[in-house]
């Protein structure tokens, strides 16, 4: 039996180790980068609890685990909030069960750890390490191993191709926009859905921290922004992470055109995958995304201790939708909304 791994917090003197680990990991996402973690910390004030795991002091880390300590009723949760992929990055030749077991052992009495996993993360030993799981949706992903023309002809269904042509015929144009344009549309969409929005400053901080990786793409009708998607273009992945559109212009099909243009852009930039972001399986949004030929990747949050698995469930938010839509003006108020967002950390 090998000795126990040593967990160390991410401190200033370990920043370069963290960054090197992320750069060298094939599975890393933008949500593992310091740019993301710093933006979350700066805007929401969560206590950072990122950890590096070592076999032996002095060696390179064998795993890194992003996470913030978030207060809840009767305890605390360590989680990488607001993102789809908060899983640990484990070195290819290391035992993920050992890493996960060590994380579970490290918890205090009222602490809960949530790790947001996905099939392609390379980390599978959650059950063996005693983590409970709860499904939180799917993330459709489109592999870009074909040219855009091939994707258009073979992957996109007619439910996409026809509206894209309609949007083009009606004079919609798509180009890089500003964060202000994106945020205005995003906020209106959050109001329509009755969902607490991120503060605008979070996107600005994220944009500063991640530099070129954050790009708002905007659809215009005669110069007026009517739809927008925020892209996180990091490594070989493009994640469509936030969007917004004006309902009264849906007949112009801005969303289909935006998604198609974002995919075309990812192809042009040589990205290997476009990630459509988390969606509830079987919803209209899921159906819309699946028309692009994307393949669903199941998202599961893993929780230790396992009896607190409900802490990671997102079902409760769905149940509240009828109420939150009525309370939308309050929930999306520029002062109250971000505070609610901080509380629910999803």
């Amino acid at each position: 039996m090998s000795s126990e791994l040593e967990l160390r917090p991410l401190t200033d003197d370990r920043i370069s180790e963290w960054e090197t680990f992320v750069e060298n990991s094939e599975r890393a996402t933008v949500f593992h980068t310091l740019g993301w973690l710093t933006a979350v910390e700066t805007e929401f004030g969560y206590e950072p609890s990122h950890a590096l795991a070592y076999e032996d002091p002095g060696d390179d880390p064998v795993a890194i685990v992003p996470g913030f300590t978030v207060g809840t009723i009767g305890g605390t949760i360590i989680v990488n909030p607001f993102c789809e992929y908060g899983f640990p990055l484990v070195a290819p030749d290391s035992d993920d069960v050992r890493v996960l077991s060590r994380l579970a052992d490290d918890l205090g009495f009222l602490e809960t750890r949530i790790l947001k996993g996905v099939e392609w993360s390379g980390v599978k030993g959650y059950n063996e390490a005693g983590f409970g799981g709860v499904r939180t949706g799917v993330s459709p992903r489109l592999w870009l191993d074909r040219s855009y023309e091939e994707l258009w002809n073979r992957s996109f269904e007619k439910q996409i191709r026809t509206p894209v042509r309609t949007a083009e015929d009606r004079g919609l144009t798509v180009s890089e926009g500003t964060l202000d344009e994106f945020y205005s549309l995003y906020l209106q969409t959050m109001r329509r859905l009755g969902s607490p929005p991120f503060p605008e400053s979070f996107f600005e901080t994220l944009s500063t921290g991640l530099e070129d990786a954050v790009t708002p793409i905007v659809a215009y009708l005669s110069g007026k922004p009517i739809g927008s998607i925020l892209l996180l273009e990091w490594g070989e992945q493009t994640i469509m992470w936030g969007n917004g559109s004006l309902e009264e212009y849906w007949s112009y099909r801005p969303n289909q055109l935006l998604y198609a243009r974002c995919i075309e852009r990812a192809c042009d930039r040589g990205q290997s995958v476009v990630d459509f972001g988390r969606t509830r399986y079987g919803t209209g949004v899921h159906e819309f995304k699946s028309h692009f030929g994307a393949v669903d990747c199941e998202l599961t949050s893993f929780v230790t201790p396992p009896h607190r698995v409900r802490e990671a469930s997102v079902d409760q938010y769905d149940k509240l939708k009828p109420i939150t839509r009525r309370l939308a003006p309050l929930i999306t108020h520029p002062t109250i909304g971000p505070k609610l967002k901080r509380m629910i950390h999803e």
Partner: protein
Amino acid sequence: MNKRTLAELAIGSALVAGTNLYWRRREQAVRDGLTTSRKRQESGGFQREEVRAAEEAADALNTRPADLPEKVEALDEKVRKLNHDLDSLRKRWVDTWWSARMQQPIDPSEPHVLSITLEEGTLSDAEAFGERTAMDEWGIAIITAHADSTFVITVGEELSDEFGAADLAQELSDRAGGGAGGDDHYATGGDVEELQAGSQYVRDQLEEKIE
């Protein structure tokens, strides 16, 4: 029992019930959570190569990947049916060959009447035979398919001035029931009630005339 005792009992009962409920819920959460994490550990998700292979298969079958199971099932059923048909055909071919082998040899340069009985054959089988016997210049063939009560009559070129295939078929049909039609060289019939007797009658008549 005074009020205080009752209150204590009620509080005690509520505590026991609450504790019981808490542990049940906790146990359920652990069970559900570990089941989900076990399933996730066992599943690898879809790999790109697998998806691309499914797309290629769908292209080859002119369908969508989502419809592949249905398409494959239909194809499997079709293959099973074809295999069954092939087995049946093979048996009929052997029976036919054996029957022919046991008959008296004929002189192809003299007028002759051939009677071919396909016990398990259908009109398609009889027609296949008919295409061949039609080339027999000095022969008249009566091919009966008993699986669907049909028949084919062919008359060779050298005998067609004297005998018409359509007339012979009509004669068989008048005698044994059903309907018939065709031309001087080739005729078919169906729905015949007394196929064996009818064909035998026509054959006897023909042999008399030829002799």
